[in-house]
């Protein structure tokens, strides 16, 4: 099987037998994507979407283009000097593109990164507050690159006005950010909205926004367009309330509810940042995600990528596609499309094989003594569903929880800087300490970290922090490796990290 397409030269053959019982696949979830409850038509649509399917994001990539600068509301977690903080990480500014430039960039990326299957418009403002720019971009892509799926994110205020165009363009994924269904709570999140040619403040404005969001959601569902709902978890403001939001949007037919943590720092200059509003702890976030999950798929792998993000998993290859570089590229998209189709077929064959292998395995008995406490284990990967990234190169760690019943995905943890700055350049002096501190902090609830390789220095710091490093599982399938490591920990008589105590702390 041709696996080079995944960007790995050394993915293990699928015949490699699993070290122990249990499911082995590139999936992050314990059931396939946690999507078994969804109708086939929906699953089909989600199947290859790297933002929506936990499994697909190991194989396919998405990109965003920053064509939509204007916004029609203000959120307290956003500073309008930067990109929209709901869809992006706060504090970054994306390079604004015209629709023409954006289309050219998309074609360039699609030719260079065949795994790129989804184009999103999410900002830096609200795509539907810039309908001409957003739809002009979509029209060009639909015309020139029909093999690319379109998606957009919106705060919902202008959504009901654009449902026709969204449907006509065959946009099949829309994300609405819904932080509340109660105007009084809304007034604590949205200081104003611009509506009917007036700026409307407080709960009056929030009420309009909420009504428009709900109406837009209903209209999209009626027309069979996939809707995901994003919510920002703001402790003390909407954390409890989001359980109700989840019930309502699920009842109306949203296929996925993604609860994201508030990110608020003084230096972002946002209302929440300046006023000292805190974000949720890792445990609070995963508890709320659990509470909202019910029978609905929760998206735990959202990376809050930036408005001009490009790449697979947590990587950002945006720097390879700056305006001047794109201008210099000569793109034959007809040829590229053929190549893409072949590569996608290869990826699908690979995924099918993984699924068959998984289906043939017997349901595992308990993987550890029933009394064993759960453990969180972080891994590093470049994609393909295996542990193939060096510790020093990772800017993202995927955290799993292993328990006697099995392995489940908790979420990605991002750090701004990899421990090593280049392939062979490891940090020196003070930098080294700070970069590593950030990583240790991101992994504080983890008992082990599995990488293709771990250097000597981080190795000892990890051990000191009570996180067992291991390179033993290099190139193994993620879930098997996590399960294997869990066994190792138990055998070594490891004492569980107290997740509850950490949540309180």
């Amino acid at each position, binding site marked *: 099987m041709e696996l080079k397409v995944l960007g790995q030269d050394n993915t293990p053959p699928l015949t490699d037998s699993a070290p122990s019982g249990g499911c082995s696949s590139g999936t992050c979830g314990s059931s396939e994507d946690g999507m078994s409850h969804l109708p086939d038509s929906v699953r089909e649509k989600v199947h290859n979407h790297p933002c929506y399917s936990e499994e697909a994001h190991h194989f396919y990539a998405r990109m965003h283009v920053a064509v939509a600068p204007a916004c029609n509301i203000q959120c307290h977690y956003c500073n309008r000097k930067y990109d929209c903080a709901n869809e992006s990480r706060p504090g970054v500014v994306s390079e604004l593109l015209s629709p023409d430039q954006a289309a050219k960039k998309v074609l360039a990326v699609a030719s260079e990164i065949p795994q790129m299957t989804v184009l999103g418009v999410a900002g830096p403002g609200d795509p539907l507050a810039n309908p001409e720019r957003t739809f002009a971009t979509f029209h060009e892509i639909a015309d020139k690159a029909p093999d690319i799926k379109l998606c957009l994110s919106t705060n919902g205020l202008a959504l009901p006005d654009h449902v026709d165009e969204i449907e006509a363009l065959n946009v099949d994924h829309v994300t609405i950010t819904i932080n509340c269904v109660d105007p009084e709570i809304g007034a604590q999140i949205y200081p104003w909205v611009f509506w009917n040619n007036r700026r409307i403040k407080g709960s009056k404005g929030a009420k309009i926004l909420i009504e428009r969001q709900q109406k837009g959601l209903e209209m999209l569902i009626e027309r069979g367009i996939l809707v995901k709902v994003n919510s920002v978890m703001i402790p003390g403001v909407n954390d409890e309330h989001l359980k109700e939001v989840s019930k309502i949007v699920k009842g109306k037919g949203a296929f996925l509810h993604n609860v994201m943590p508030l990110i608020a720092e003084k230096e972002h*200059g946002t209302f929440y940042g300046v*006023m000292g509003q805190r974000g949720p702890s890792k445990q609070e976030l995963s508890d709320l995600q659990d509470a909202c999950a019910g029978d609905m798929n929760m998206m735990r792998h959202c990376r809050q990528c930036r408005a001009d993000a490009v790449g697979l998993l947590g990587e950002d290859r945006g720097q390879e596609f700056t305006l001047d570089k794109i201008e210099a590229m000569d793109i034959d998209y007809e040829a590229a499309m053929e190549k893409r189709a072949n590569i996608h077929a290869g990826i699908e064959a690979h995924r099918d094989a993984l699924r068959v292998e998984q289906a043939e395995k017997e349901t595992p008995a308990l993987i550890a003594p029933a009394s064993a406490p759960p453990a969180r284990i972080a891994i590093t990967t470049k994609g393909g569903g295996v542990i193939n990234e060096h510790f020093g190169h990772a800017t993202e760690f995927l955290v799993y929880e292993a328990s006697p019943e099995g392995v489940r995905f908790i979420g990605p943890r991002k750090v701004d800087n990899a421990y090593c700055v280049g392939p062979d350049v490891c940090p020196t002096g003070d930098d080294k300490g700070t970069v590593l501190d950030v990583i240790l902090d991101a992994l504080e609830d983890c008992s082990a970290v599995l990488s293709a390789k771990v250097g000597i220095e981080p190795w000892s710091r990890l051990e000191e922090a009570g996180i067992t490093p291991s390179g033993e599982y290099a190139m193994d399938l993620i879930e098997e490796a996590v399960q294997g490591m869990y066994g190792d920990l138990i055998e070594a008589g490891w004492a569980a990290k107290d997740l509850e105590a950490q949540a309180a702390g």
Partner: protein
Amino acid sequence: MALSIVESCVNCYACEPLCPSEAITKGEEIFLIDAKKCTECEGDFADPQCASICPIEGAILDAFGEAINAPGSLTGIPPLKLAEAMAEIQAR
């Protein structure tokens, strides 16, 4: 009488399509209002449209050079609090 835009404009494009008088254009550095064309939205809207959507406090001035959106009026951040936070960040 006309409004004007000053350098704190973040080039978000929000005002430009709303202007009933086509008085707003994107300039070299920031968006600009053509004083000859601006009607302050008289006869079209109750509120000047540009100043009603602009997210940046102080970016749009009235005919007397006063900020239409005063500090703290849009973000809800009390100006003193913001100054404190800025000072704290600078001191780091």
